[in-house]
């Protein structure tokens, strides 16, 4: 009996001790984890960068067939006022032919205005306007051809040119971001 009691007591002791060590250890680990966060978070975009995350663009000076490039979040954004022919061409494409099928309607808010991030989806170069086999954009780095809706038609790029979030504040102004 006595020996059994002793063993029990010893067991209880061990358990209590382990519990204390475990609690202390895990409590320390949680603190160390929380401490790491500020050191990681400090590399994220800071408040002054975030403040520039949206840009307003005046569309009034752009004539049909012209496009402008503006800097948004350090990247070029193409704003193109498309001609009737370009729109017709973009809308007439058969979806089956496309590597990344998307209708022109889903890529624009108003057919006249095409707004997209001017960064080639292949490896990040900037495509050239009014170039390429599809009358749209052509990336000089590895020869990707985009059409008048900014969709990839030929070349190594996997996806269509990205459409940023934007809203029409009025007929002549859009806010990107």
């Amino acid at each position, binding site marked *: 009996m006595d020996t059994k009691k002793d063993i029990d007591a010893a067991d209880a002791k061990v358990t209590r001790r382990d519990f204390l060590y475990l609690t202390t250890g895990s409590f320390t680990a949680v603190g160390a984890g929380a401490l790491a966060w*500020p*050191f990681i*978070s*400090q*590399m994220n975009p*800071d408040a*002054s*960068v975030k403040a520039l995350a949206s840009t307003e663009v005046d569309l009034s000076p752009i004539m049909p067939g012209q496009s402008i490039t503006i800097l948004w979040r350090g990247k070029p954004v193409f704003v193109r006022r498309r001609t009737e022919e370009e729109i017709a061409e973009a809308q007439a494409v058969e979806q089956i032919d496309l590597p990344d099928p998307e209708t022109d309607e889903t890529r624009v808010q108003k057919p006249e205005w095409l707004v997209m991030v001017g960064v080639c989806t292949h490896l990040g170069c900037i495509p050239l306007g009014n170039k390429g086999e599809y009358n749209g954009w052509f990336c000089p780095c590895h020869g990707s051809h985009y059409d008048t809706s900014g969709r990839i038609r030929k070349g190594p790029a996997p996806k269509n040119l990205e459409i940023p979030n934007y809203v029409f504040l009025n007929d002549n102004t859009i806010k990107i971001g």
Partner: protein
Amino acid sequence: MSDDYQPQSAVAKWIDKRLPIVTLFSGHLMQFPTPKNLNYWWTFGGILTFCLITQIITGLVLAMHYIADANLAFASVEHIMRDVNYGWLLRYIHATGASMFFIAVYLHMARSLFYGSYKEPRELIWIIGVFIFLLMVATAFMGYVLPWGQMSFWGATVITNLFSAVPFFGEAITNWLWGDYSVSGALLTRFFTLHYLMPFLIFGLVILHIWALHVPGNNNPEGIDVVKGQDTVPFHPHYVVKDVLALVVFMIIFAGFVFFSPNILGHSDNYIQANPLQTPEHIVPEWYFLPFYAILRAIPDKLGGVIAMVSAIAILAFIPWLDSSKVRSCKYRPLYRQFYWILIIDFIVLGYLGAQPATGIYLILGRLATLYYFLHFILVMPLIGYIEKPKPLPKSISEPVLSKEEQLAKSGQMA
């Protein structure tokens, strides 16, 4: 528990045969036999390691946002404080961390002085320590210049002008330091570079410091040699946990400053951008330099002041030979112990005087305190070793020849 590390798996054996790094760490951080009677004054080594690593890591991330340019530095620090995610926290930890580092290093040095940890066979540990302290002083001074506030600028001006005291070459040296004809952006950029480099030199010296420590092993409050096994415990877990406990208490004070009084250890003039056309009314260094600043001003001669200030640190490197006593610990040195406390008070008084204007009674007191500071090392330390009759030393730390009373007092202190 205290067995040496034996690699178990085949992979571990393979690695350990070629690079016994686990064996090394296990030997020095886990199994290392440590005297079992170390008190909490021995925890500052660990605390200082923490301080150094904290400063290096926060400094590294601050450098990702800081701009070392005379026109942009001040605004970039405020950018860190205002815009960078948790930037205010990182900067306050770094700025307060410097003060905490010095609090810890002064206590660490005071402990070594009290228990005679600088004496044979630990002279080199102490001397490396003095060099670490010197590098800390230089690093902290250069770091304080980086925010490019008024105190940064004028502190840099005053301290770099000390070199103009060098006979014949003074001006050439200061111009070389400045890269200009006065303190300017050129100095800021080179100070930033050196401020970034020096902590890594300190880190290297710390490794030497610990290496040298692990040859004879730790001193202890009794100041007598220990018998391995009988008098020692493995470093882990006994001292790992004890050091971490002390560290967490230290961190509570640290956090108190960072979160609730982050600017109290700094100076308000440093929130004014550097202006080369206007000197602040009172130029005071950071609090941890005040004792040495008081020594500098106590000497009425430019070159003499500089020499005195440099000597005040340099003399520390010689105390293993200035102290003539055979007994290490002040516990058994009734006479020297009193002078030890006079030295501590003297140093604090110097610190107080360093913040006062150097006129009238402050100047006189400053000179007396400076005089004692040097006399303590040059005169008191060598002499007392001959005069003093030390108390009988215990045979071992496991069976100290202590009176009942002392034993009681001791157990109270340990609990």
